């Protein structure tokens, strides 16, 4: 597409004037090829030529050489740069040389494993000689029990996810011993998604895997792939415990890309300037214009309901214009796998012109390269922004990315400071496999698999002895002759969840169609999406929720002709259940203890399509969800608050800014991800405004505790000149955006 022409034409219209805050041209890049100095079997070249690949990009050649040299590799190149070839080629040529060898591919989601299964199956389908050695199979929670033994013994490439590895493979290593003994390569794709608590768990799971491999006599090579992050070597080094070789000389070509920052106009009078036109509405209009020009487009929204609404509105606007309305579909988590596969395929083949998606399509499922991406609201991190933007990018022509701003502080900050977006480093991905809480769970699993000895410090660090003894004191391990044995019944892996968010799903069942399951939703989101009388949108079609069975985890829905959609009204609170320690400090009283964080859908509103008119509301009686976790809290003294008032700030709002700074600063002290912690400002518990910072993991993981112990350092970081990252988060305050984003009165 001609992106510049599109921008020019569309901004010529009165409705769109003065909305482009910034246009950044990202220059095109020629492909850089390289001869691979390691031999690739002619059989595989034949296969590549059939896929129209005649030469390798230089990063592919470099990766293949490094793997052939026996090194552990992390490949960090752009979206659609042919990363999978960097591991598929070495793995398959390894199988041709040694058919007894095995490979394990680990993906963060089941969908990605299925996607890659398809790729490998197509490889095997091309040539009988490849099929003889390449027998790929997915082994995850959905794999039927009767297929499992056959996969364990017969598959040469097993595709799985970390959760299944943790709970369904490693504890049963006896059944896998032949596979583990012959394991040559471990592929860890989308490695940037393993950070924070999840990443720290995955690091331990990988160590458990490597420890068992060593036990059974293999030392597999590791190939990681990552989207761009600031510290891929550090991250993968910590995840695997190996010294990694970085391959990031991206040789793939890309066309010119225009990145547009688009700020919807004010709706009110010039003097007021408070409300703006909705970014959602703007997204629909831009999408429709792009589809009319036959530009293949993806819209990324931050919420499921928005993905559905954008789809519905766009379809209705395009009704009657040839087949255009039928060539858009929504895509989000919660659709059934078959439906998702179908949409991905239709997008890939070009049958679909546009999808309205959530970040479910952000990870590397191959849908081909598109002409345009519309990001409705800042996705939250620089990494995600570039991942989503990377979906647009043709090699031979221009592509277009539009970041549409919401009227919230972070988005508005970005509109004013484009250099932040284009200049800032990508985020650091932090993992801490030595976190004692995580270690306690993971060492239990490791001990169950193989008794722990002093040698395990090499895998899990110097805390092994102390943590194992703590578990032994509870009677779950027993030390005999210098080894810790697991000494109670049950598989401890079932008690250790790798992710902060539970994997439990609700089924969404259509009672009007033989109780067919039409979709699913995770247990945390269910009360916000499928509460009784909610309008549940699925592929733009409205259903009304007739009943939410929280026991059976089923939402019963039926199709309904309604002219409104619904929005939940959420209430949350943080309640102290126990104070463990308190320490008065010059900055005020600080405490560490236990809190119950609860949230609940208390009511919902009916909102009319298009006009957004409120046409009704009702209260709900749904059980609250509770996170019992560890928190630290801090009550600044009265004098500080009055000082703030005197300076013209609202003390509570200013404290919220401080909370944001504290949340932005804690990860570097506690070695966690920003999303592993959360915080509130609350006066109800103690009668005075208090900042609470808590771990977003049941029972806590020690992050708030770390902040409590290192409180002075923490506040120092907050009061130092905030880094750009810190500034963005700090900008997420309720203060008017005309003020500096920090509200960071000196602590």
């Amino acid at each position, binding site marked *: 597409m001609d992106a510049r022409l599109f921008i020019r034409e569309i901004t010529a219209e009165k409705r769109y004037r003065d909305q482009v805050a910034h246009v950044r041209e990202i220059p095109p890049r020629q492909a850089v090829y390289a001869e691979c100095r390691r031999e690739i079997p002619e059989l595989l070249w034949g296969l590549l030529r059939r896929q129209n690949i005649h030469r390798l990009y230089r990063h592919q050649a470099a990766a293949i050489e490094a793997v052939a040299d026996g090194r552990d590799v992390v490949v960090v190149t752009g979206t659609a740069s042919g990363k999978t070839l960097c591991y598929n080629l070495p793995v398959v040529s390894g199988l041709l040389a040694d058919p007894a060898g095995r490979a394990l591919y680990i993906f963060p989601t089941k969908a990605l494993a299925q996607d890659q299964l398809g790729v490998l199956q197509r490889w095997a389908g091309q040539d009988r000689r490849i099929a003889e050695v390449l027998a790929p199979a997915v082994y995850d929670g959905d794999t039927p029990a009767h297929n499992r033994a056959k996969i364990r013994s017969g598959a040469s490439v097993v595709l799985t996810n970390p959760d299944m590895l943790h709970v369904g493979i490693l504890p049963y290593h*006896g059944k896998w*011993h032949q596979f583990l003994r012959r394991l040559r390569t471990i592929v860890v794709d989308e490695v940037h998604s393993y950070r924070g608590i999840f990443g720290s768990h995955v690091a331990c799971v990988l160590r458990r895997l490597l420890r068992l491999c060593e036990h059974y006599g293999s030392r597999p090579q590791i190939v990681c792939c990552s989207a761009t992050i600031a510290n891929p070597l550090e991250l993968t080094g910590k995840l695997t415990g190996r010294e990694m070789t970085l391959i990031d000389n991206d040789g793939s070509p890309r066309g010119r890309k225009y990145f547009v920052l688009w700020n919807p106009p004010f709706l009110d009078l010039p003097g007021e300037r408070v409300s703006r036109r909705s970014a959602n509405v703007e997204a629909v209009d831009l999408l429709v214009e792009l589809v009319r020009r036959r530009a293949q487009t993806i819209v990324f929204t931050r919420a499921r309901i928005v993905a559905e609404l954008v789809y519905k509105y766009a379809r209705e606007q395009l009704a009657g214009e040839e087949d255009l309305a039928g060539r858009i579909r929504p895509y989000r988590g919660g659709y059934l796998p078959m439906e998702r596969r179908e949409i991905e395929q239709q997008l890939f083949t070009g049958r679909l012109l546009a999808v309205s998606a959530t970040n479910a399509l952000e990870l590397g499922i191959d849908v081909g390269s598109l002409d345009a991406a519309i990001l409705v609201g800042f996705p939250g991190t620089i990494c995600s922004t570039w991942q989503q933007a990377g979906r647009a990018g043709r090699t031979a022509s221009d592509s277009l990315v539009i970041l549409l701003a919401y009227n919230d502080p972070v988005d508005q900050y970005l509109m004013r400071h484009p250099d932040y977006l284009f200049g800032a480093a990508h985020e650091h991905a932090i993992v801490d496999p030595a976190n004692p809480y995580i270690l306690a769970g993971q060492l239990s699993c490791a001990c169950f698999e193989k008794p722990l000895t002093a040698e395990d410090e090499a895998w899990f660090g110097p805390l092994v002895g102390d943590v194992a003894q703590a578990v032994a004191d509870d009677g779950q391990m*027993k030390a*005999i002759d210098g*080894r810790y*044995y697991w000494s109670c*019944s049950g598989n401890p892996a079932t008690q250790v969840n790798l992710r902060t968010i539970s994997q439990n799903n609700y089924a969404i069942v259509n009672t009007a169609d033989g109780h067919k399951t039409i979709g699913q939703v995770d247990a945390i989101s269910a009360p916000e999406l499928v509460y009784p009388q909610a309008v549940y949108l699925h592929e733009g079609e409205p259903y009304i929720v007739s009943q939410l069975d929280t026991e059976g985890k089923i939402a019963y829905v039926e199709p309904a002709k309604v002219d409104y959609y619904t929005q939940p009204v959420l209430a949350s609170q943080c309640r102290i259940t*126990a104070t463990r320690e308190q320490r008065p400090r010059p900055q005020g009283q600080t405490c560490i203890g236990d809190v119950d964080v609860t949230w609940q859908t208390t009511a919902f509103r009916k909102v009319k399509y298009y006009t957004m008119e409120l046409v009704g509301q009702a209260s709900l009686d749904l059980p609250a969800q509770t996170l019992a976790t560890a928190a630290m809290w801090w009550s600044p003294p009265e004098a500080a608050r009055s000082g703030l008032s005197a300076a013209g700030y609202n003390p509570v709002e200013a404290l919220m800014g401080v909370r944001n700074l504290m949340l932005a600063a804690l990860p570097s002290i506690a070695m966690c991800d920003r999303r592993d912690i959360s915080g509130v400002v609350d006066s109800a518990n103690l009668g005075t405004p208090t900042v609470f910072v808590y771990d977003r993991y049941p029972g806590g993981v020690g992050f708030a505790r770390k902040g409590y112990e290192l409180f002075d350092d923490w506040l120092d970081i907050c009061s130092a000149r905030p880094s750009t990252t810190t500034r963005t988060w700090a900008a997420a305050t309720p203060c008017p955006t005309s003020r500096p984003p920090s509200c960071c009165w000196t602590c």
Partner: protein
Amino acid sequence: MALPESRRQKLDMLIRSLAAGKIKQAEETLRAAGRPKPPRKLLALEEVAPGAEASNPQGAFWLIRRRLAEVSPEAPSVQKEYLAVLRGARHRFDEMRASAALCHVADGQPEGPLFLDVETCGLAGTCVFMIGLMSCRDGELVFDQLLARHYGQEPAILAAFAERMASAETLVSFNGKAFDMTNIRERAAFHGLALPAEPPHCDVLHESRRRWRDIVPDCRLQTLEQYLCRRRRVGDVLGSEIPDVYHGFVADGDATRLKSVLHHNLLDLLTTAQLLCLLLTGEEPCVDL
């Protein structure tokens, strides 16, 4: 109504904990206090399972050897039946329908089969802590229970079993193809122990399904025992409790409850032998349902 003193103490403790902001601790203490453990007599392993330490290059373990006559009042009749059937008297089974392993057993001598029943620490490929064996020696059925007194003795019992299996003509088990031998193989691989070739293995579960599926409610061992051997167990330990019993034994050395596990294992072996006899005679037992 007067409060019992123990309850009063618990309530006081709860109030103190609430005041101190330690509700969770109180809950835990209460839960622990809610399960009063009566003072019990510790029983040493030697008292419940007269045996002797045995050892091999993999280490030491506890070997409990008992003749059938020592453990079962039914001994003379069961033994007589076993010897008669295995010597070939009254073979009536349909060789065309029977498995090769069953034919192998039928063709051999009473001393040929090695009966096998293992006990493990759980389902997920965990430690094997006891390997129960039974075989016929000098006209008598003899049990050998190879017991790991703690987790570290597993290699020793596996190695001892390997030696026994090497000289066995046939293996006889109940569900041993899927469970017992699978576990043994996995654990031997884990410890890097080589196992000898497995002799023909007659799995009585599979044979029983073929023969009696339609006349009994299900083919679990204890169901068959009840309907075909006309025996019911009293006070037997539940299979699901066995791992906990063993972990408890390793933790404090008290063998009180382990005794029932040892007995459970013996009965399983014995019933397997009785079922084998029924299979070989081809008699259709009269089953009252």
